């Protein structure tokens, strides 16, 4: 205990790096879990009323818990690297509020469509739901890219391409999630859309890597390295696996392979960033990390509560597993 509360040394020498890993992990889990929801929201656009009820029944019990990972990511970053939290948020002032607006529209849309039995009302909030679900991954992707690439504004080629890539990834994830949740024609269409989105995603992923290589000379050595090669190859493999598994009706494998795509994506983000945490301000992990006492304490809390949070999610996804029915709807 005394060692733990020491203000001169981290409990583990590599604790700052581990905390950086945790920041990336929470970002990854968020992109994965809310990716299901965003993708579902995008595919919602072409569904009929019964299909929409089915989709919302699948979405209902899970999305709020998924969204909490965004808060977890933000606070984990804040607790470990407060200056980075302050820098990247204040630097992307308008973008951050645009992301929050998109997320708000998404959450509100789904809640409010149920509030009135009026065709126009429902259509309006459905449109908000779809728009919010599309804009959220686009803006989030642009934000993450602008942070990692050290851009001062997300209105640059790199961030925009990455934003679109994250939209495609969300469709892949949403389709994989819905495949196990639906039956009949809806399921077949979702599988088709998932397949198309996977092709688009892989194309965009490779395009992103190429673009970074050409436009951002400081990243050339990272892109031209074994780790990036491994990430690109695993992206291709996961894409192939998920397509094959979906075609042969193995939902679970297709789902896991799609999740693998998201993992590979976040690994790529982490590889590009490390050992910096805020390239635009020239801050590395060691520059920006909080002092030993503070990080030791926060790490102990994380070590206790992250497994518990993991258990919550296993419980939640098991409890609400299996196909959703339109009668359940959203309430």
């Amino acid at each position, binding site marked *: 205990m005394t060692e733990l*509360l020491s*203000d001169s040394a981290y409990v583990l020498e590599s604790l700052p790096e581990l905390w950086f890993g945790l920041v990336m992990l929470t970002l990854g889990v968020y992109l994965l879990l809310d990716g299901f929801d965003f993708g579902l929201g995008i595919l919602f656009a072409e569904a009929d009323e019964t299909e929409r009820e089915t989709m919302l029944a699948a979405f*209902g*019990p*899970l999305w*709020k*818990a998924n*969204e*909490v990972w965004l*808060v*977890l990511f*933000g*606070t*984990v970053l*804040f*607790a470990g690297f*407060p*200056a980075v*939290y*302050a*820098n*990247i*948020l*204040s*630097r992307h*002032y*308008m973008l951050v*509020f645009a992301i*929050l*607006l998109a997320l*708000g529209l998404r*959450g*509100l849309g789904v809640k*409010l469509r149920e509030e009135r039995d009026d065709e126009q009302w429902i259509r309006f909030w459905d449109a908000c739901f779809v728009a919010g679900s599309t804009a959220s991954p686009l803006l989030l992707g642009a934000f993450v890219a602008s942070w990692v690439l050290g851009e*001062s*504004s997300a209105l640059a080629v790199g961030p925009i391409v990455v934003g679109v890539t994250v939209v495609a990834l969300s469709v892949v994830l949403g389709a994989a999630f819905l495949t196990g949740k639906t039956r009949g024609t809806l399921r077949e269409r979702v599988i088709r859309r998932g397949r198309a989105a996977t092709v688009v995603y892989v194309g965009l992923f490779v395009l992103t890597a190429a673009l970074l290589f050409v436009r951002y000379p*400081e990243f050339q*050595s990272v892109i031209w390295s074994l780790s990036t090669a491994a990430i690109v190859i695993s992206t291709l493999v996961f894409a192939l696996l998920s397509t094959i598994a979906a075609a042969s009706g193995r939902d679970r494998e297709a789902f896991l392979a799609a999740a693998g795509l998201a993992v590979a994506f976040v690994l790529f983000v982490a590889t590009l960033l490390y050992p910096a945490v805020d390239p635009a*301000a*020239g*801050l*590395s992990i060691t*520059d920006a990390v*909080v*002092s030993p*006492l*503070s990080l030791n*304490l*926060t790490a102990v*809390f*994380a070590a206790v*509560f992250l497994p518990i*949070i993991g258990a*919550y*999610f296993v*419980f*939640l996804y098991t*409890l*609400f597993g299996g196909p959703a029915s339109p009668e359940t709807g959203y*309430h």
Partner: protein
Amino acid sequence: MCNPYRRIAGVDSMFPTSEPSIPALASAYAGDVLTLAFLTPELASRIQFGWTITIHIIFAALSVGLAPFLVYVTVQEVRTGEKRYARLREFWTKVFAIGFVMGTVTGIPMGFMFGTNFAAFSTAAGEMIGGPLSFEAKMAFMLEAVALGVLLFGRERVSGKMYALSSVFVALGAWLSAFWILVVNSWMQTPRGYEVVMEGGVPIAKLTDPTAAFFNPRFPWMYVHMQNAAIISVTLVIAGIAAYFVWQNRDSDVWRTALRAAVVVLLVTSAFQAIHGDMYGRHVAETQPHKFAAMEAHYETGEADLHLIAIPTDLDAITDPRADNLYTISIPQLGSFLASGGDPTAEVTGLNDFEYESPPVAWVFWSFRIMVGLGFWFIGLGAWGTYRLWKGGLYDDERYLQALMLSSPLGFVALITGWYVTEIGRQPWIIQDVLTTADGVSPPLSSAEATFTLIAFVVGYVLLFGVFLYVLKRLIDEEAERHTVGIEEDDRPDSPGVIADD
């Protein structure tokens, strides 16, 4: 990596100037006239944060205050199987759910505003407040979100015991959430357990003693006062809605149950709040004398009276309350007596004698009076109802039921004005005696951007609040309809032992 990572040289290098944004460009082209209309980044950020928390705290307090009631009715439902508890649980779970969604939607931006609008504050205090905020997300918010999923969607999927447990977890989540948030806020009022270290020309508060920092002198006062205020606010809402249904249908067993409970809880909690609040005031006088002086509009150092009632004698008194423009009913020397803990002639430092500028006195002075005045009204309401309950005739006292209906939002008014005293009274400091609010604002923030998002937040949160009221009204109408359709079957208590399922 090819980037040489240099150590931060100063605050400017940490915030590289961004490309001019669209609103900034627009304002530049529109000329000076338009530029003048923008607020300073500091003022816009303060109003934005103050406004968003004003709305957010309604939902936060709704969660905190409703949680114990929800546990009570859910446990009773599972235990007794009586339908009236199932009905109450069903209704209040729906209210809780919409409150939680609203709380999430209005609350998430607040955490991010630490970074967007108060970046210098976040950098300086990150080590002190980042930890507690992450504990809140990990321990509390997660638990609440997951357990609420079960409470809302899982009635048929889990056992009765498990279901009751999920309501306990939702409540625990809400209360833990408030715990960590108030750890952060109380630290900003009475900071302890830190030392200021200069890092690259920027002062950073380093954590030296977590226990002293988390359980700083203000924390226990604030936590008890806030949690109880949340319970009072929700009790008034429950009492108001129950009164409405009873007023419509005197025989409703369901809502008579709710009304009885609310009236008694109101008396106990509001009486406690008054006693506790009095002691809390003394603590504020000791730890933040300038806030206490602003609460009493006490400008000249010397003996202080306590103004029980203050009525403005001219318009200036509203914006600038002072001894000479108020008609007051005061108890001489009581201010001194309270502030010093017993000495009626004790000297109380006046606002003119602090080395830094005063907080906006009018906001603090009037907010304090509204809060205290309402507090006494709640005690009266509680006593009136409890007397009626004891003597009989609670359900037939037309005037009392109407008073409850009209008073249902007033708990939140008292709670919000109480926070105005706490937060506005701390100005000009963002962290008492450590960092001023002006120094805490994000360096790269432009007036145009800050004003633009302020307007968006005002419009957005008004709409959100409107949506909440609309949904609440719909829930109430639905419930009222059930009364007229199925009073007989619905309100008759079931035979005990049968689990009521819906």
